[in-house]
């Protein structure tokens, strides 16, 4: 129960600013006489999808010689088709605007259908070698199918998976930014990260400018920024000679991202830019100064960042929260 809210409801109703019906509903929720389990139900459905796709993958892996390749291909295709057919029947008509989900299980069934399709494509490629040496191009095909599905059925989750599948085709895992700092990665990988990131930012821009599902923009933008900043950080920490070039590039890009964050009240942009710039700056600090002085500079620069944050807190505060 939330006693403060219960009391406030009573007072506002007494002032005549809240009708009986609304006061009754709010009060019931605040007293826990009415509780929503929507989140729990959605998470359970997602967990069920996770278990089923894991089981499907294990089935294929373990029974690959027993069942026969054709049976596996057809079974996965059949279940995928059933899921996608169910989704198609329940989908709302296509719109470039936000359409919303027609049901709690809709997005999970869509994801299940696409994941089974992905498993099927992967198995076909591994078993029958349709694409030969370019076998990983099945990920490109899958990402394009997922992209189409994301837009047709208005699913941000599927869009996220589509973009990460595309990035996986280019050799990038979801933990790329961490690996960029703490382990080595080739120049090719860095190039791919920057290219993918730039492509995703183009997607974000088109979403807003053309009105092509503008509510998808945060998905495109955040993944794009993570890849670009991760790519630049990998140059800062891996390059022995050219790291200063990457450092300067990182500073410029981070400054732009921070500026965009402040101007558009996007705290996440600001955070990504600030953390990337600061982590990159640590190389300069520890490369050029003795350890003790480096620690001291790190301490005072962190305090400086805090003061900068304090100065920008109103510009970045979430209008949905009060304190």
């Amino acid at each position: 129960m939330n006693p403060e809210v219960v009391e406030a409801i009573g007072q506002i109703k007494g002032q005549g600013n809240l009708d009986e019906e609304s006061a009754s509903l709010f009060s019931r929720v605040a007293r826990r006489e009415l509780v929503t389990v929507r989140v729990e139900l959605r998470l359970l459905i997602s967990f069920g999808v996770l278990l089923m796709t894991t089981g499907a993958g294990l089935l294929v892996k373990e029974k690959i010689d027993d069942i026969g390749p054709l049976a596996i291909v057809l079974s996965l295709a059949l279940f995928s088709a059933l899921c996608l057919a169910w989704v198609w029947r329940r989908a709302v008509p296509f719109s470039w605007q936000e359409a919303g989900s027609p049901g709690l299980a809709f997005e999970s069934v869509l994801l299940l259908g696409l994941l089974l399709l992905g498993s099927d494509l992967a198995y076909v490629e591994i078993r029958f070698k349709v694409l030969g040496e370019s076998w990983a191009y099945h990920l490109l095909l899958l990402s394009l199918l997922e992209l189409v599905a994301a837009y047709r059925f208005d699913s941000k989750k599927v869009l996220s998976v589509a973009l990460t599948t595309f990035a996986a085709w280019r050799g990038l895992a979801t933990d790329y930014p961490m690996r960029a700092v703490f382990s080595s990665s080739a120049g090719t990988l860095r190039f791919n990260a920057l290219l993918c990131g730039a492509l995703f930012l183009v997607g974000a821009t088109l979403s807003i400018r053309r009105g092509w599902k503008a509510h998808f923009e945060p998905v495109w933008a955040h993944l794009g920024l993570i890849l670009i900043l991760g790519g630049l950080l990998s140059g800062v920490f891996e390059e022995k000679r050219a790291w200063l070039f990457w450092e300067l590039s990182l500073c410029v890009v981070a400054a732009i991202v921070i500026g965009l964050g402040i101007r558009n009240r996007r705290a996440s942009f600001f955070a990504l830019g600030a953390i990337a710039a600061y982590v990159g700056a640590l190389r300069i600090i520890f490369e050029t100064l003795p350890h003790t002085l480096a620690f001291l500079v790190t301490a005072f620069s962190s305090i400086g960042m805090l003061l900068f944050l304090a100065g920008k807190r109103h510009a970045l505060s979430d209008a949905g929260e009060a304190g």
Partner: protein
Amino acid sequence: MKSAWVMAERQAEVRNAALAWKKAGAIDAAQCASFEALAPAARRRVGPVFRILAFFFVSLAIQALFGTVILISGANSHAIGGVAFFFSAALVLASELQLDSRSFARYGASTGLSFWAAVLALVAFASLLDANHVWSSRSITLFLCAATLVWAAAAWRWGVPVFALLAAVALFFLLARMAPGRTLWLVVGPLLALAASRGLDSARLAPSHRAALGCVVAVSLIAGYAALNRYSWDHHLLEELSGDSSLRTSFGGWALVSAFGTALYPLAILWWGWKARRTLLLDLGLILMALSFVTLRFYIHLAPLWVVLMVSGAAVAGLAALVKRLLDHAPDQERAGFTARPLFRHDRHRLEAVATVLAFAPAAQPAGGESADRSGGFQGGGGESGGGGASGTF
């Protein structure tokens, strides 16, 4: 907590509720304004991203300053304790000042300051115990006592629920070192959960203190389950925490008790959650039930793992869909006080999206797929738990 801080929290609860109703379209701007007038904001609170960022830089600053002082002074372990003590005292003062500030309170730095104040206090205490650079069993026990008290005091003073969670964890680690630790977990866990749950709705407690009690309830119930779980019993997991296998409970029937307990304990929590209409207990019950099924599968191989996964996945998803259908078709779309309507609860879409990407994103391939090594059977390049070509580990 100071009365001004408690008042600010209570006002924030009312304002946040009003904003959620307005966002859901349940009230208009004028009605929202009347709630805001009733509970004026002492200060504007910033969003979670901003608070995380502030915590990050506070932590970096404190650790860098601490490291600088240690490097300059060339301190030995005792001197480190002294430095840690003074840092802790300074951070306590800084936390108090920051929370009193109308401009800077609750923008994230205060949590960082209070967190490191507690951590460095424990570092100082640890250095006192580290007399000969050898930690005895008694030292560890004393340290856990101190940790319990420090985190509990920090949670009480500064109203950070996570500190209560850490205090509860330290308490149960302390109990694990006593004989018989497993029995203590089994008895103290549920009892502490019951006692803490009585304060969850108390109007006398500040909102953050009620949230802290929620953390204590969760940790206590998990501790009770860990004591009962059959796998934990067979593999002496609790006894390994104490480092002394002689503390193992000698009760001969424990194996049978743990077998039944593994199955019934989560059901009991679910029943409690149902009766009390607490989603915390329902969520915990579901998680522990999942762990019980995993434990059951470990001992009883009814079917191949892939069958278990697919059937259980279908069962879980199907059951959730059935419950939703039952709720949606009930009068007023609610049964026994439960509903599947969103009401005014934040649905944490972002967290779910991140979890989806992490669970289902495929593993990276060599860039462009050229010259890929495909020897060794089906791998599929899939993610760990799904995605194109799942590897199927579970």
